[in-house]
């Protein structure tokens, strides 16, 4: 209940509760928090409270129950949050990152055809990477089933476990996001497919920024300032990569007790692109793919995006806007 109170109370400073993951794909969020960019942009009228999550579901639950106002999150939970609330609960107000996903396999596998009969891991049944793998294989004429059967055996498992199982030889490859791509490569894997190559302009969404509809309605100004912060954070990340990488490492260290190796961040960095465009088309296409591989029912994404704030901010800075789908 206190969530709604905070969100609807016009008197006094507004509290914005922002969620993100301590992760490379959430670089703008991490850097923005660590460097005080959000606090700066939100100004004195909006109090920033940050919450760190380990995975999407908890963040969605938090948004649903009014415990969180905005969060950086992957495309998959975004769609879930939107569709399970019948299009009511959330809006995407900005993009954050693109790319950073690849199929890493054992070095002896050199062609897609050789994947037949192999075990390939994905982070989670029905998530973006899982769908991408299944669709990719389908295009190549290889079948998969939800239960892990078919020409290629898809094993959904946590990314951390994938590193263990790949190392021990229990799986032959994995379609995973950064930093796990780099990790698997360091563990002797080889990138067979870089997912960017499958998309137009080599762009597809990996992280975007969502805001709860209630908060958006109650405090559009605060949301605009948040988007300003996001744009500024991306600016920072893109212009000062070294400082950003160090900031990410430090920030992760604060939360997890051990700074992430900067070398690993540097290794993963080039595969990612930090863009304010949420690349709505890729989300839509991804969903079509999911329907094609029979992992979901079609979902109407109308109204998911509200990019007016982003475009306002970009326009004010004299930058090109993004297309509102």
């Amino acid at each position, binding site marked *: *209940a206190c969530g709604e109170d905070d969100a609807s109370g016009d008197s006094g400073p507004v509290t914005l509760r922002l969620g993100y993951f301590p992760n490379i794909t959430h670089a703008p969020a991490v850097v923005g928090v660590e460097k005080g960019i959000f606090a700066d942009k939100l100004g004195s009228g909006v109090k920033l409270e940050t919450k760190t999550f380990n995975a*999407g*579901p908890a963040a*969605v*639950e938090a948004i*649903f*129950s*009014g415990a969180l106002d905005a969060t950086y999150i992957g495309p998959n*939970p975004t769609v*879930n*949050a939107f569709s*399970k*609330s*019948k299009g*009511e*609960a959330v809006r995407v107000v900005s993009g954050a990152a693109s790319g950073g996903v690849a199929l890493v396999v054992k070095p002896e596998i050199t062609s897609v055809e050789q994947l037949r009969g192999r*075990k390939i891991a994905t982070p*989670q*049944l*029905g*998530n973006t990477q899982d769908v991408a793998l299944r669709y990719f294989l389908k295009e190549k004429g290889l079948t998969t*089933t939800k*239960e*892990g*059967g078919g020409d290629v*055996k898809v*094993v*959904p*498992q*946590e990314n951390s*476990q994938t590193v*263990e*199982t790949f190392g*021990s*030889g*229990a*799986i032959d490859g994995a379609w995973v996001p950064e930093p796990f791509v780099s990790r698997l490569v360091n563990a002797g894997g080889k990138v067979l497919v870089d997912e960017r190559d499958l998309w137009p302009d080599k762009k597809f969404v990996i992280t975007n920024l969502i805001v709860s509809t209630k908060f958006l309605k109650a405090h559009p100004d605060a949301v605009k300032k948040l988007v300003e912060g996001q744009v500024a954070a991306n600016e920072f990340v893109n212009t000062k990569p070294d400082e950003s990488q160090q900031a990410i490492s430090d920030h992760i260290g604060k939360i997890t007790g051990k700074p992430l190796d900067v070398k690993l961040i540097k290794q993963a960095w080039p595969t990612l692109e930090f863009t304010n465009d949420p690349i709505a088309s890729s989300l839509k296409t991804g969903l079509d793919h999911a329907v094609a591989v029979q992992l979901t029912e079609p979902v109407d994404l109308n109204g998911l995006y509200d990019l007016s704030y982003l475009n306002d901010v970009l326009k004010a800075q004299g930058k090109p806007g993004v297309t509102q789908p």
Partner: protein
Amino acid sequence: MASDTLATTAPRSDAEISGLDALEIAGQEKAATRASRIWAATWPKVAALALAIGLWQAVVWTGWKDSWALPGPAVVFADLWHYLLSASLWEGLATTARRAVVGFAAAVAVGLVLGLGVARVKVLRAALGSMITALQTMPSIAWFPLAILLFQLSEQAIFFVVVLGAAPSVANGVIHGVDYVPPLLVRAGRNVGARGLNLYRYVIAPAALPAIVAGLKQGWAFAWRSLMAGELLVVIAEKTSIGAQLTYARDFSDAPRLMAIMIVILVVGLLVDAAFGAADKAIRRRWGVLDQAGN
């Protein structure tokens, strides 16, 4: 000294022995019929259930939370109904139940041996005694890497996690039971010629049985919880499981399905508890400690 004195004195056997005290007296005189006994055992459950669902529905009606965050009973039971009609529930349940039984059996075997050893052998107790609780506190996910190292992506990896979760609990039950075996009975056993293994068989094991059953019950809870986590470890080809479905429901932010699965888990828990309850009641009847209290 006729009926009016009766009125003042008769209460001794009825009204005076009331409230909690009444529960403390063997209520055998209230030799109820079979039907009324079943009714007495059933209505509180039904009432509790009705109360819980009513409360839930009331909260939903207040509109306190959005329906996608807190779905109402109607939505959940509709989803549960679909779920019950789907093959995935029954397949998942079959897989999970089999794993639970096998894993728990292994855990019980390990736990019993470990518990008996630690309880009766001084050196083992000094060496491992305190390790058991420590192991018990280790979360399942900490064992996952080791499980994969040892067993790759096989069901054995799941069993490994289940056994590590449940065996310490069983062992602790055994140790507690053995520790509190009345010394007089141990002496009596030794005196009637039960030494070594026979002492365990004829005296220590039966005397510790109540505590062992309690330990098994706690062990089952650990086993089941570890299994729910462990089933995510290995999603074995062609096999769905309750643990995996639970996590997927959450991953998809599917609140009604999540609650439907929770109901299924509760029902399984109730069935298992009924089995343990029957065992415990049989023991208490034998020992003559039944009917002290409510049941």
